[in-house]
């Protein structure tokens, strides 16, 4: 290990294959490929949805047909053929289980490989798991504890049936059906996702977490998440993804809506590790996600993300700071390797008075990848004393990759205070030399430096999740992160 250099690291990064690439063969209930109004109706019927929901989906579908795919992002990819995708697939082993023993053993083995066995998870720090395998929830834990507090945490399809008044009131209020091409598509065909409601004044006692996995060849995954934190409540929501190795590109177009009412706080953390494609850039997941939250008075929304996977990522978790004194935060680490392309960032829309936002974005590019930060900070004319701080740092490994920054800053109020800074650098020879000199070998030194570089963001992750994030960083930059 004495002669481990950055070149070795690069070599290792090049050859490192996706470790979690495996495929579980569960008999699936899959729709034929293609998309038309009948498919949309069929999805709705399959989910036993009420008429208003079917109409809502159809409305979205009609809008979607009129729209064209956005091209402004700094990514290049072969556009998916939307008629060659199956829009519904659900694991067949139904109905739901009350105990873990009833769960399909093959599925359990899958989780074991991921290192997230339910047994372990149950014990681990009170994390409630709503495990989503190919769109339908198959196991939910800790539901009772949550129920006692009045917290509703279930799949969105159940919520449509059981709490239609809440879904109807909030669905599409933050991300309208016609918001953008992929949001419209998602609105039309979303198969499942999570729904979470925290009642007034309740501090959710545990981290809520859902695992999304794409598990069936040729199925797009269209998740829909809706989190509502009622007045004065608090919730920390975790979302993590790993996907099996596949050759054709898979499409993932999720929509996440967060609603933080007066004095509420939502912390939303993501670890994303969809299959990034192999070293030649073949295969990999297309990740086109719309995530947005709205803050009412004194509310706070915090997005934390660790993006290591996907061939193409197009993702901008945003905050609309509508209420006075509301706070928005965005912490992100995006790692790209091989031929991965990431165009990610955030939007902070300041509408209320005394609103504050913080953006910390760390991009690490290696191999032949392209990593872009794209963000918008907008201060409305009524947003007196709005405050923003943005920092975007990029770390480049090798000269075949690229790091780009596209910040948009629009201020219409004289009391606004906005700071934006960005730097691009590589791991300094002097930094490595300094470590070497003190008996730290180069591998450890690189690990230290990368770790230090992303520490600001890693620190924001909930403890249980930081473990997973660390693991995923290890896979993406094996040998560099200790």
């Amino acid at each position, binding site marked *: 290990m004495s002669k481990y250099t950055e070149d070795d690291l690069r070599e290792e990064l090049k050859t490192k294959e996706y470790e979690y690439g495996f495929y579980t063969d569960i008999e699936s209930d899959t729709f034929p490929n293609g998309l038309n109004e009948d498919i949309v109706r069929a999805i709705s019927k399959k989910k036993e949805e009420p008429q208003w929901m079917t109409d809502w989906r159809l409305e979205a579908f009609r809008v979607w047909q009129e729209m064209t795919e956005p091209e402004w992002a700094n990514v290049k990819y072969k556009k998916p053929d939307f008629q060659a995708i199956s829009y519904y697939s659900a694991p067949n082993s139904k109905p739901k289980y009350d105990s873990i023993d009833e769960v399909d053993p093959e599925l359990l083995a899958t989780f074991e490989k991921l290192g997230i066995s339910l047994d372990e998870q149950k014990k681990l720090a009170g994390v409630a798991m709503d495990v989503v395998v190919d769109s339908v929830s198959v196991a939910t834990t800790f539901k009772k504890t949550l129920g006692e507090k009045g917290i509703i945490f279930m799949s969105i399809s159940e919520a449509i049936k059981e709490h239609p008044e809440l879904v109807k009131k909030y669905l599409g209020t933050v991300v309208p059906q016609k918001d953008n091409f992929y949001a419209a598509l998602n609105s039309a065909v979303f198969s499942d996702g999570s729904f979470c409601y925290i009642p007034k004044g309740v501090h959710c006692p545990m981290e809520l977490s859902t695992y999304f996995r794409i598990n069936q060849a040729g199925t797009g995954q269209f998740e829909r998440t809706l989190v509502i934190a009622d007045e004065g409540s608090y919730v920390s929501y975790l979302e993590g993804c790993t996907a099996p190795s596949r050759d054709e590109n898979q499409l993932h177009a999720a929509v996440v809506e967060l609603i933080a009412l007066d004095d509420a706080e939502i912390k939303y953390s993501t670890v994303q590790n969809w299959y990034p494609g192999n070293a030649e850039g073949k295969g990999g997941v297309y990740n086109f996600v719309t995530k947005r939250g709205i803050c009412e008075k004194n509310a706070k929304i915090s997005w934390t993300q660790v993006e290591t996977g996907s061939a193409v990522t197009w993702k901008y978790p945003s905050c609309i700071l509508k209420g006075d004194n509301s706070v928005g935060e965005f912490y992100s680490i995006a790692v790209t390797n091989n031929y991965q392309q990431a165009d990610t960032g955030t939007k902070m829309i300041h509408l209320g008075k005394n609103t504050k936002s913080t953006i910390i974005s760390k991009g690490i590019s290696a191999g032949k990848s392209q990593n872009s930060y794209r963000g918008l900070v907008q201060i409305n004319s009524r947003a007196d004393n709005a405050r923003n701080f943005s920092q975007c740092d990029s770390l480049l490994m090798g000269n075949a990759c690229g790091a*780009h920054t596209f*910040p948009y800053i629009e201020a219409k109020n004289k009391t606004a*205070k906005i700071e934006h800074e960005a*730097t*691009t650098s590589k791991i300094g020879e002097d930094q490595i030399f300094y470590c070497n000199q003190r008996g730290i070998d180069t591998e450890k030194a690189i690990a230290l430096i990368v770790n230090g570089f992303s520490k600001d963001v890693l620190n924001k992750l909930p403890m249980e999740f930081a473990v997973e994030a660390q693991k995923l960083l290890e896979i993406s930059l094996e040998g560099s992160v200790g």
Partner: protein
Amino acid sequence: MDLKEKLVSSFLAFENRVDVDAYVHDVRSEAIKVFEEKGFPSKKEEAWKYTSLNAILKEDYSVFPKQENTLDYKDIKPYFIHDIDSYKIIFIDGKYSSHLSQTTHDGLDVCLMSSALNKPKYQLVIKNYFNKIAEKDSLTSLNTAFSNEGAYIHIPKNKIVEKPIQILHFSTGNESATMLQPRNLIVVEENSHVQIIERHQSLTDNPVLTNSVTEIFTNKRAIVDYYKIQNDSKKASLIDNTFIKQRRESIASVHTFSFGGKLTRNNLNFYQEGERIDSTLKGITIIGDKQHVDHNTLVHHIEPNCESHQDYKGIFDDNSTGVFNGKVVVEKEAQKTNAFQANNNILISDKASINTKPQLEIFADDVKCSHGCTIGQLDESAMFYMRSRGIPEKEAKALLMFAFSNNVLESVKIPEIKQRITKIIAKKLGVNIGFDL
């Protein structure tokens, strides 16, 4: 008939009126086709997202000056730096004014684009440099199609030009609305050094639209200092397109002072083709009313060991809007690049707005690139300090604002320009102090 149709249809008449060389003729015909196809840029284009030309394109501009106008020296004296000896190239309504100008062919060429385009002895330079780095976007193409008059400056090897060159464009307002399209070509050969001051001035309140293109070539180890003073009347709009190509070890800097005009758009592009090049782009913008100033910069780092420094300060009052769109591209061969970009803004009024977009596109790993951008207010404790010492509010504010923009002035190499700018700033801020405390 809208402006685009008018321009396209008058192209043939224009071609017939001026003597054309076959080479230039081809360049022009090609350019008008590009303009005809693309038209004027709209807000749908990313580069024009925050700047709309609609309002200024509505005027019924006369595209060619109908008559030659003259001005007296006393009318124009306030508008140039008159207390230093300088070469002057003066245009009135787009026509060269020989009795006001002071040009030379003695050891260097400071003369006219029209003669360079027509006289055989300049053919080689024209073929080598004319329209070689100007982008093929619609406004630059429009200028290329009508390129006829402007400044032509050619500095031979190892020549230090002792006095600055002033390029001044006046419009008399004898016609209700005028469109001007000056075209400048500046070639600075090895080891030479030149300082240039450019200014556009309208003498009445009749609308003027200037679409100017300047190509600057700085060869090996050459030094070019360029100052743009933009303090035009409230009815005049300026679209300035400047392209600078630098060869190795050359140093080029452009300072842009934007205080006047209705709409000002500065497209400033630097292309670094060689090692150890230094580029500086600085600007002060102080505007009010309904003024709009847009700085659109590009620095393209192509080879290793180069530097670029950008520093733009803006102060926006009333209903004014400011735009900064800075882009730094570092190619993968351009290792050891140091690129810095700073954009600081102060909003004074509730109705003023600023849109800024500092972009970095980096393909090389061993580089130091950073950009910073701030929007804020004057420091209240500093204000309090001065007020408590008996400095009136207005003056205290002005002092702070002057201090805020002083970074940019510090690198100005001609003291007379510094003084002039200081005076303009004082006037703009409505105070009667000298700032040279």
